[in-house]
């Protein structure tokens, strides 16, 4: 458990090493990156094995950082952080495996990649608002360079949009937090950025204050979680990003936003949550349906996945808005589940398919009998698609089920709206599977009208791709079959005083 902070330091150290190694040889940089990520994953798994959920929030480090401001370098973990830290470990290893064939500026790529990972680990382990914010912002700049440097379609536009949306969101968060901290000093004479201490004071502010502060902080975080209609950075950013970065962006970076909503906005301002609950829920449902319908008509394979991410993140936000233990636990489970599944989907589209066929247009892909030409990719995508649709046996099922049940408890109408979203998700996923992999109606050797030349074989799937895919499939199936593992972690984490108070809507 106490080794968890090393995931952060190791990632930054690995970033430096990859930069240095990359100046000599690309292979060395890859190995450095993979070893760093694997050690990180190992540390998270060891911590998970030794984790005692009932102990609640367990402090890992707590030393003064900036005494003049009352800022302490306070890292801690409970079941929710641990779930997401394990997800980060999985996604980082898989992302590196799917970036194995990269040849341009490899050292710099993995340096940015690991710096991003380090920031993400840091956010998930922070127990102090200042530290949280610092790591949250550290994660912004590497994303920009990952997309701008190694991306594809309109990469500079996508990268800038991604960076500015994230930064604008964090500006809102910062104003809200400063307001809360200053009000805490003014009213109670306490200057602390510690999330638990803050929650004790801010949760008792008068409703108008809480509503204002909640609006700023929640909206700021929700931008990064893909809240409709501020989600537009997500599809463009995910599509423009290189495969490894798309996996991270959809897999863990969007979770930063949702985690911020859960960890900061909810316990700090419960009355604010109660006030905005219906609005958030309906926006989340709108996002689920809108993004799902948009995904249904995309011609770019990667945009289908990009919009599906927005749709699935809508479930997370709905779970948070429903604000009862079932729904919130489902939301955390959905964060994990979507992180793994989105990673798989982007890996198949970006790495396995695009880098061999050099097209992402479904119209072109449907002419190729991909299920014969790359059966492994077809298999992985089908499994991931089933998981994404919420089929029992995969992690998406318990997650979305818990969210729907929880939403029903708060308001049946929400569950109905989101239930429609599940149908739409099934539709666009099936369409993507069918058109991309099983759509070939012609003889593959016959001349085709599009740019894609007729081909009868592709370069075989490499071992890093197989390893990465197996890792993620194993994770989604394991959690699908035994969701209790994660739910047993998450449940006690929702039992803290601040969280219980928040889930009661700020009522004593």
């Amino acid at each position, binding site marked *: 458990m106490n080794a968890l902070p090393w995931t952060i330091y190791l990632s930054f150290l690995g970033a430096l090493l990859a930069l240095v190694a990359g*100046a000599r040889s690309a292979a060395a940089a890859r190995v450095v990156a993979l070893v760093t990520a694997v050690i990180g994953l190992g540390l998270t798994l060891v911590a998970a094995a030794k984790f005692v959920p009932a102990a609640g929030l367990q402090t890992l480090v707590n030393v*003064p*950082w*900036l*005494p*003049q*401001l009352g800022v302490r370098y306070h890292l801690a973990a409970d079941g929710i952080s641990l779930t997401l830290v394990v997800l980060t470990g999985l996604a980082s290893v898989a992302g590196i495996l799917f970036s194995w064939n990269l040849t341009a500026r490899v050292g*710099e790529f993995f340096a940015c990649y690991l710096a991003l990972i380090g920031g993400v680990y840091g956010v998930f382990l922070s127990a102090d608002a200042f530290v949280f*914010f*610092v790591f949250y*912002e*550290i994660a*912004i*700049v590497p994303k*920009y*360079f990952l997309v*701008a*440097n190694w991306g594809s379609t309109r990469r*500079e536009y996508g990268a*800038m949009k991604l*960076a*500015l949306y994230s*930064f*604008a969101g964090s*500006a809102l968060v*910062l*104003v809200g937090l*400063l*307001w809360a*901290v*200053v*009000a805490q*000093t*003014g009213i109670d004479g306490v200057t602390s950025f510690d999330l638990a201490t803050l929650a004790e004071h801010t949760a008792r502010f008068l409703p108008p204050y809480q509503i204002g502060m909640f609006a700023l902080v929640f909206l700021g975080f929700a931008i990064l979680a893909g809240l409709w209609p501020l989600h537009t950075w997500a599809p463009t950013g995910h599509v423009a990003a290189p495969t490894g970065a798309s996996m991270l962006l959809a897999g863990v970076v969007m979770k930063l936003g949702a985690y911020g909503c859960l960890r900061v906005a909810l316990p700090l301002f419960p009355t604010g949550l109660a006030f905005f609950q219906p609005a958030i829920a309906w926006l989340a449902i709108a996002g689920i349906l809108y993004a799902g319908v948009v995904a249904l008509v995309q011609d770019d394979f990667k945009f289908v996945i990009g919009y599906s991410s927005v749709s699935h993140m809508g479930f997370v936000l709905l779970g948070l808005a429903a604000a009862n233990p079932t729904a919130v636990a489902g939301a955390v489970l959905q964060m994990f589940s979507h992180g793994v599944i989105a990673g798989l989907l982007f890996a198949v589209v970006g790495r396995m398919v695009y880098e061999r066929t050099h097209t992402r247009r479904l119209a072109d892909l449907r002419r190729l009998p991909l299920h014969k030409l790359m059966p492994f990719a077809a298999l992985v995508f089908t499994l991931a698609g089933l998981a994404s649709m919420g089929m029992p046996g995969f992690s998406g099922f318990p997650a979305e089920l818990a969210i729907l049940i929880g939403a029903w408890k708060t308001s049946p109408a929400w569950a109905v709206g989101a239930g429609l979203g599940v149908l739409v998700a099934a539709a666009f996923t099936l369409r993507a599977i069918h058109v991309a992999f099983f759509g070939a109606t012609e003889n593959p050797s016959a001349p085709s009208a599009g740019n894609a030349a007729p081909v009868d074989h592709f370069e075989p799937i490499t071992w890093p791709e197989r390893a990465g895919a197996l890792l993620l499939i194993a994770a989604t199936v394991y959690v699908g079959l035994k969701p209790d593992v994660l739910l047993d972690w998450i449940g006690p984490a929702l039992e803290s005083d601040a969280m219980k108070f928040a889930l009661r809507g700020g009522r004593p």
Partner: protein
Amino acid sequence: MRLDYAELFRALRPEALLVFGALLALGLDLAVFRARPREARLRIALWIGALAIVAALAHAWLGVRGPVFGGVLLFDRIAVATRLGVLVLTLLTLGVTAGGRTPRHPVEHVAIVLFAATGFLLMAAANQLLLAFLALELASVSLYVLAGFDKSSPRSAEAGLKYFLTGGISAAFLLFGFSLLYGITGSIELAEIGKRLAGHATEPLTIVAVVMVVAAFGFKAAAAPFHLWAPDAYEGAPAPSAALIASAAKLAGLVLFWRLLWSGLGGAAGDLGRDVESTRLTVVNGWMIAVALLAFASMAVGNLGALAQRNVRRLLAYSAIAHAGVLVLGVIATGPVTTEPTVAPLFYYAATYGLATVGAFGVIAVVARAGRCEELTDLAGLHRRSPLLAGCLAVCVLSLAGIPPLAGFLGKFWVILMAFRVGGAAAPLGWIGAAAVGWSAVGLYYYLLVLKQALVAAPTENAPPLRVPPAAAVALVTTAALLIVAGVWPDVVLRWL
């Protein structure tokens, strides 16, 4: 009152060392090295200058504390920290000079930098109107010369002339304001003025004097609407001169005016707070309102202006105007001298801003030495031409953008937190603080445009790899390292402040 000249000399040893170093460099050059090539003469002068600064640093660190010479000079903690800060920034500027194009009169350049630094040192400790004005003029006149130092470039001449004319006018305003203050209070001691002004804060004559001082302050800080000289001066001046104008001069100027406004004119500050009980705004007329308007206008003008720039130096100039907005906000928010430790955020912000600017101009100087460095696109492919420069530029620019864990983030965060504290989030300073946070999102856009060229774009075809002179490399790496260390372990830097 008995004046102790021996103590005065002890206290001013850093200044004496700098002047001695400057004269030594000039004299040696004139007597011995005149016939050598310019590069060699510059190197010798830089060594002498660097040694003088290091010696001055040691004396400033270990030297006298407290009021000196009957309170003409005040060596409190902020003064000592600022003196160390401007010396370090000047030293780094000398390193940048080694990396740029060798000026036609290399030794004179170094000597004038040392004279300017002498002015900065006095500005940091001045506690009396006369000395404050003399120190400011010593520094300013040196900077006018430095801005126009490249005699072969019409743009440099334009920069020097514009800077000189506007600077001269602002000095006239300041002097006028000072004379009025003397007329009202009958004293030139800041503490005495503060005491006697207390009852006359709203008299018309006081208001005129305060407006004069604030206008001169706005000019020194390059705050809107007194900012118009900055883009031209930054664009035309040789890069090392621009680095000095934007860094050490700014730090010393801010501390001088902070002292002037709070110790001297504190009685005329007015109020922008909020009553805790009744939650009513307690706005009282005074210079706080004027300076708050400067802050608000600077952020808007600087950030919007920077968006439109294609020239990297003009972009940095507009970014400087935007930062000036936060800095003058810090001057209000860090409050009166009686609560001295709170000045730490202002110092931290100004010093780390100075560091980042020196680094950015240092990179520009090295790039300009090998070719052109005007447009943003002249930085294209810097990562291929010199990874070291690209790395240093990334650290400095990201620090300017306020990205943690670099020092620029903490500085901005802290100043804004102080602004929020003045009257809560719903008081005028809270609004300006919130605006500052919002503007920083705009700022990220243009800073990323710079980095996009340097780190993402491919180099143009005929762009050769860049050779970084060792002195400049040391200066730039030190700058980047300081920005990281000050950001990650702020306590190390702030412990003795």
